[in-house]
């Protein structure tokens, strides 16, 4: 499964993975733009509004009927945050030609690519402007999504840590934006932003399926020949902060209506980001809090029965590491201390051969498993392409296998704790329960 990458239109790059392993094909288009407070909500809204109707399929009913007739193909708006780059567009999946139950069915790749082009480039407009009704309806739903962030307390606590810890950085926002940035979007401004986005943003297209790259290229060129291409803005990247914002760790506690407390700790990966070694960073994270054999899971969750979950994760593009844990509010100090102790062990190289071997084994296995899922491959290659990296999952697995104990402790020693966030229930109530 070798990836082939081509520039099919100015600033439009197609990555093709030909394989007959999967029963479905996947096609995605992502326009890349700077993640920033001012535009983030607008950008996220664009594909959702486009998905409401086109000149040929004027409303959701018409698009739905078309997709159903293509054996339930899916075409969904998507907006992602990759470091400080926002990737907005669509992804589609559809069953492979080999599994169409009726002979003589139209080939789905071309049909889906055509619909994708239609949705992207021929929206239902009046006087050249996106329909106010569609914009207003999707804007309200975006606001509903923004407000609903609070429903999932685990995800919300991570969101709050990022927002508070990176307050002065573009990274603070997530792809939905907030009520201010989404609240005031009108259809005239959104039409303008839409036109600017499709004409100036570089685009990454990804295909994975059984079609040969020439056929894919042809289908996409046919579907996108109307794509306006102006001066492409390649000035994209992520500003990596090496040190914590203040000399001392910042602490933030917030009260919400919860029985289980959520403890989230944010670290800067620090100096190792000068010349980051993605394999070493991943292995460090795996030993520390990446899975059931990690120090956090075994020693904080299992050994101390302190919490239901304790794990860590990284954003390598931005150079951050997070620890997340669900705990009894009274265990706050104990849990914080236990997590610190495990990190100190990482720093001093107190890592057994078994710990290192298991972490590498499961990471290398995860990397190899990427190639079993078209969806995971899509995310992997988008991230690789943004970083200008050309190696695939198999090579990354081999790099992981080569990481040494010294590499891991070097990453651990480079970490700087920046903020501790704690979400807990109202103080009086928990006291009463005791």
């Amino acid at each position, binding site marked *: 499964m070798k990836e082939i990458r081509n520039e099919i239109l100015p600033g439009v790059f197609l990555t093709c993975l030909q394989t007959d392993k999967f029963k479905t094909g996947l096609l995605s288009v992502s326009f890349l733009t700077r993640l920033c407070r001012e535009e983030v909500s607008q950008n996220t809204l664009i594909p959702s509004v486009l998905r409401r109707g086109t000149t040929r399929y004027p409303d*959701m009913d018409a698009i739905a009927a078309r997709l159903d007739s293509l054996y339930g193909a899916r075409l969904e708006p998507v907006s992602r945050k990759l470091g400080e780059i926002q990737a907005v567009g669509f992804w589609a999946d559809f069953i492979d030609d080999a*599994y169409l139950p009726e002979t003589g069915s139209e080939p789905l790749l071309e049909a889906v690519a055509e619909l994708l082009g239609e949705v992207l480039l021929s929206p239902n407009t009046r006087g050249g402007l996106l329909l106010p009704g569609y914009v207003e309806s999707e804007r309200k739903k975006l606001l509903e*999504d923004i407000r609903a962030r*609070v*429903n999932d307390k685990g995800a919300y606590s991570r969101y709050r840590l990022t927002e508070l810890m990176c307050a002065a950085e573009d990274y603070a926002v997530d792809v939905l934006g907030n009520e201010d940035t989404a609240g005031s979007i009108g259809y005239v401004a959104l039409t303008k932003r839409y036109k600017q986005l499709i004409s100036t943003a570089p685009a990454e297209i990804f295909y994975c399926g059984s079609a040969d790259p020439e056929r894919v290229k042809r289908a996409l060129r046919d579907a996108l020949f109307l794509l306006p291409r102006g001066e492409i803005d390649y000035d994209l990247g992520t500003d990596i902060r090496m040190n914590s914002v203040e000399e001392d760790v910042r602490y933030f506690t917030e009260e919400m209506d919860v*029985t289980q407390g959520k403890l989230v700790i944010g670290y800067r990966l620090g100096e190792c980001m000068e010349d980051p070694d993605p394999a070493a960073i991943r292995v460090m994270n795996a030993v520390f809090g990446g899975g*059931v054999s990690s120090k956090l899971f075994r020693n904080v969750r299992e050994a101390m029965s302190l919490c239901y979950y304790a794990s860590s994760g990284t954003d390598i593009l931005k150079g951050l590491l997070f620890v997340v844990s669900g*705990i*009894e509010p009274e265990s706050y100090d104990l849990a914080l201390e236990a997590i610190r102790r495990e990190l100190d062990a990482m720093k001093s190289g107190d890592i057994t051969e078994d710990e290192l071997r298991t972490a590498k084994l499961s990471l290398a*296995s995860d990397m190899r498993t990427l190639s079993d899922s078209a969806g995971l491959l899509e995310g992997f290659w988008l991230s690789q392409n943004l970083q200008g990296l050309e190696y695939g999952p198999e090579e990354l697995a081999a790099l992981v296998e080569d990481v040494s104990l010294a590499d891991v402790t070097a990453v651990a020693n480079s970490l700087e704790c920046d903020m501790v966030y704690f979400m807990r229930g109202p103080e009086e109530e928990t006291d009463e329960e005791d």
Partner: protein
Amino acid sequence: MKRTDYTAVGETLYSSVLPSGLPVFVLPRRGFAKTFAMLAVHYGGADRRFTLSGATFDTPAGIAHYLEHKMFDTPEGDALLRMNAAGADPNAFTSESMTAYHFECTDRFEENLRTLLSFVCQPYFTQESVDKERGIIAQEIRMYEDAPDFVVYTDLMKSLFSHSPLRDPVAGTVESIQQITPELLYECHRVFYRPSNMALCVVGDVDPEAVERIAGDILTDGPSELPGRDYGPEEGPEPVRTLTERRMEVAAPIFMIGAKLGPMKTGPEAQRDRLAAGLALRCLCGPSSPFYIRHYSDGLLNATFGCDIDHGAGQYVVAFEGETPEDPGAVLDALREELYRIRKDGFDKALFLRQRRAAYGGRVRALMNFSGVAAGLAGGCFAGFQPMDSFGMLSSVSQADTEGWLRDNLDPERLAMSVIYPKED
């Protein structure tokens, strides 16, 4: 092993029942790096009252889930860690009707399969280890209790049922798990963890004969008497209460509307019934149905809306869930109105045909989900049918079957609703 080809979807299934009574299913997937294996036990949160050899057992809510947590303990240590050290990613889950232990790996499959089968067969609990787990499970329960999706579901089950064990959450409550002892766990293991009450399902680039051989080596108990499950007297069709409301820290009202659909069927009849049910719900309110699109457009519903059928404790349940910025009562009214309309007019023919086509595509897509396929094979085995046969059966499920299913099962006057409103300021 018996080989069955499903050429239309490019699959070959190998199956057999071992002398121990264990059903084994292997779906080879050439060219994939990972292999997924699941050993499922036909025993879940709802199986609390049962009889065996004349004796009746009453066990606390949450015991099947507690047992799942403790099964990873072995005299040689934590099986989770042992499998992880051998490159596998092991885990487990408990539903109302099933406990499943599974792993995924890219290497050393046979070794990991042996470990999985061994620890599920050999209970090893001490008072100390059982007591220690209580804190972890209590935290898990607390986490669920803070999750609005979970609370709205639990409230709905309590609204629908008068006495079925489906009223209680699978994990039990912090109070109910206090009654769980090592002796009770051993007892439940002895009663339910019999090879003939399990299914082994493997999806990946493996040799089916090797899977069969390893399972035969490790699961050696012969077939034995299976427990009688007692879910109490059959529930009547009416919900206990039609509306349950509460407040939590959520942004907008979260609702779940449900109905009891009557006793569960088994065998191919159950399979046809489920296919008809799936099509009926797709046409009624699926993501490309006129009902959903109309109310997505007018703002009553958003993309969180969905519906599903659950089966457990001998019972089918349908649930429609979502979030609305408006009055949840308006959603209930709209759904009821649509049900009446379809009872009278039926579905539009073109709509039915395209939904059936889309359902086929959806099933092909679902084959790519290894864990879903394995869980489907186990669930089908426990209900007496082969889910792979659905590809062939789907085209014979007619519009009349689908409309008939809706008329017979979903009475617009027997819906219950549970709502979580935002806290008042």
